[in-house]
Each structure stands twice: as C-alpha cells, then as structure tokens.
C-alpha cells in the first residue's frame, strides 16, 4: 500500500493531495497541463521536498516532516520514468538498462539475465550495443521503461510513458507494465493524458486540478 499525503507551494498555486494506491494496483493520475502531476511524482521519488505531509510505502516511511524523516532518493526503491526519457547518452542501451541492477550490486549472472529479459520484452535487444544518445524518440522511451522496471522497484511511477511509442509497442508496453505490477505486487502511479491508455491499463483514476484531487473513480473490470 502506497500512501501519499503532501502539500507544497508552487509558483501559481498550492499543491495539496492525499491518496493511496494498493499493492498490485495501477492508479492513473490525469489532469490539465500544469496541474501538478509531475510534481507529485518528483516528491514521491525524493527529487523535491514537500512543505509538509507524509509519504509511505507499506510501513516504510519515505517522508514525514513531523518526524524529520526524509529517505534519500537512492534508498526509496522507486522506479521512475521521466516525462523526457533522460537515457544516459554515454552508455549503450544494455548498460542503461542494467544500471540500476549494477547499482544494487547484484551478481553478474542475475544482472545479465534480467537485463536480457527486459531488452527482449521491450524489443530493444537488437539495439543493445548502440549508444543510447543515437536512438529515435520511441527507442529512448523504451530504454527508460526497461531501465526502471528491471530493478523490480517497490513502487513504479510512469510519467506519460507511451507518448513516443508506435502502436505495436504501446500495446506491448501496457501489457508488460501490468505484468510487472502484478508479478511483484507493487503499487503503480501512471500519468497520462490519453483516456484510452488510462482505461486500458489503469485500475483507478485520480483527476488533479490546480494541485487538488477533484475526482476519483474506479475503472470497472475492463481488464485483468
């Protein structure tokens, strides 16, 4: 269970949200441009500090300003795909994908196996040895997705992860996201503007407006 209850003063308004996501559940965040979706994800990842509030995954407290807890980014075990893919341009596709595993010092066989697995799932195995700076937009996005999911995070956050993907890959990636969330039984936060995507992959919906949740609703069993 992921609990997020935070406040932060932004340039044009105050962000003030409170929501939770169950294990194995995908919560879709929608809302107008500039509503604060990316800001919520950045605070959860630890890249921005909320003014007040708490953030928890299960009983691990990631942030609690009253208790002065603020777990550093690298220990939060979140998988976060940025709105702009931010692949490491100096590394090959393979090294990009295995980066998080190497950071966790897994043994080389596990790294190789899991990396190969996700390269194949996102059909970037033929680009494995290409420098990631030389990819097309959609190829970069798949690298960023594989890189986040391969680490088996305890919370997955995706900021518009389908935008640059072609139709074939969009379908495939949706499936892999659902599988990843269910397999590891983790909560997932997904930001998207496409209602189709939201319905196809999400379990529940939160709509943000000017930094507040104005609507919550369940998608009724269209999948899974």
């Amino acid at each position, binding site marked *: 269970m992921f609990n997020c209850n935070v406040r932060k003063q932004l340039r044009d308004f105050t962000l003030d949200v409170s929501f939770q996501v169950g294990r194995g559940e995908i919560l879709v965040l929608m809302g107008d441009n500039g509503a604060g979706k990316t800001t919520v994800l950045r605070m959860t990842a630890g890249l921005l500090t909320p003014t007040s509030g708490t953030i928890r995954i299960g009983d691990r407290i990631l942030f609690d300003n009253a208790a002065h807890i603020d777990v550093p*980014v690298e220990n939060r075990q979140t998988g*976060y795909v*940025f709105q702009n893919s931010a692949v490491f341009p*100096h590394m090959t596709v393979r090294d990009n994908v295995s*980066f998080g595993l190497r950071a966790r010092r897994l043994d080389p066989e596990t790294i190789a196996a899991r990396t190969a697995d996700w390269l194949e799932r996102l059909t970037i195995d033929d680009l494995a040895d290409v420098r990631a700076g030389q990819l097309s937009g959609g190829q970069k996005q798949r690298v960023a997705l594989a890189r*986040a999911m391969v680490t088996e995070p305890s919370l997955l956050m995706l900021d518009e992860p389908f935008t640059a993907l072609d139709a074939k890959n969009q379908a495939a990636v949706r499936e892999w996201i659902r599988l990843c969330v269910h397999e590891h039984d983790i909560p997932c936060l997904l930001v998207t503007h496409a209602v189709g995507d939201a319905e196809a992959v999400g379990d529940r919906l939160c709509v943000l407006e000017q930094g507040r949740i104005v609507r919550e609703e369940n998608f009724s069993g269209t999948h899974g």
Partner: protein
Amino acid sequence: MNVMADEKRQKFRARAAKGIAATLVLIVCLYLTLPLVALVLRVTPELLMTYLPNETVQKALWLSLLTSGIATVTVIAIGTPAAYFHSRTAYPGKTLVDTFIDLPLVLPPAVAGFSLLLLFGRTGLLGTYLHIIGIDVAFTTLAVVMAQIFVSSPFYLRQAKALFEQLDPAYEETARTLGSSSFRTFISIILPLTASGLISGAIMTFARALGEFGATIMFAGNLPGVTQTMPLAIYAAMQGNFDVAIAISVLLVAISLAIMLAVRLLTRNRKYDV
C-alpha cells in the same frame, strides 16, 4: 522578387559572417604561432644537439614533468570532489569560497611564493610548528609541488565548477532513483558526461604548473636537481648565453605540446550525442 533579393542579401551576409569568423580564426592562429616561429628560427640544430644532452637540462626537465604531474593529479583528486560538493550543496559562505578560488589568479606569482614562505617557512606561521616536529617544506621538491598547486588549481576548479553546474540534472536524478548512491552516480554518470571538459581543465592546470616560475623560485629556491624546474633552468641560462635558454625553451614547448596532444588523442570520443 523582394523575397529573392532579401534571400540573396541574407545569403551574402551569412557568407560574409562566416568569412569574417574564419579570418578571425586565422588571425588567432597567426598571432599565437608566429612568435614561436620567430623563436624556432633562431635555434640551430647544433645548438640543440649541444645543450639538450646537458645533465642539468635533463634533470630540470625530469623534475618539471614529475612535479607538474604530481601537482595536476593532486588538484584533480582533491578538486573534483570539492568542486562537485561546492556546485551541488548550498552552504553558508559559498560566494566567499568562489572568491577564494580566484585568489591565486590575481596574486603575482613571486608574491604568492613569498606568501607561501611566510606560511610554511621555518619561521612562518605554520612552518614554526612544522619545524618543531621536524618537518621543513620550504626549499624542497615538495615546495615546488606546493607552489605549482597553489598557482594552477584555480584553472581546474573553475572549469569543474562550471561543468557540474551546467550538466542537465535529469541524468543525475534518474540515476539516483535507480538506487545509485551519490558517489556511484558521480563516478558513472557525472564524470563521463563532463570528462572532456574536465580533461581540458586538467591540461590548463598541467600547463600552468609546468610554466610556473615566480612562486617556485621564491618558495622552493633554485637548486639544481631538487627544485630547479625547466622555467628556472631557462632563467638561469638567460643570465649567460641567451641561445641556450632558447634551445631549452624549445625543448620544453615541444615536450609539453606532445604530452597535451597525447592526452587529447587518448581521450578522444568523449563527446556523446545527447
């Protein structure tokens, strides 16, 4: 019609701008190389043959390379993490530190050497205590390195600071969310992405250390084999026969350029499509 004329004018302007820029490059090149040409024209092969095998010259050359190398490595080792910390952390007195880094740039080298002597000399502010525990740094090879570090470190520190500040934070942030400690992120993301600029800074530092004269002779003295680096040997030679000084200088320039060229070639392909 009008559009066509406009386009022609613009094309002409673009060409003119390019031509002017190219001319400026040529001027820069000529201005920086012609003096050396004038210098080299005065050096006869016989002169080179006579003085380069000279023991004093060889000792000075070796000492120069050794001390400048050590100074550069020290600056890189201490300066890189320090500059990184500086550019990523907000701490009290940060602007002051920025100013401190510029200090050695504006201190005339001879005065810098004198200051070091006032600090580390046997009767100096710190030197007095070092002397009591049996350490005398002034007039040793260590003093040469210390003087070089003092005068050359700003070139690396400034460059490193600028590079770290300019790097897109998204790479670093992504790495951190992937579980990479700040240390690991620094090593595997920040350093490779700024490598070419850092190397450029290191080359400037090495060059400055190699050419260091004023601070060295004041703080370390001019002792052949111990503290007499190439610039000091050139100075000594200038007291007598000028042509000898030129021959040694040409040697120094040739070797330094060779080293810098080697570094440049070895570290090529450090640029990535971003």
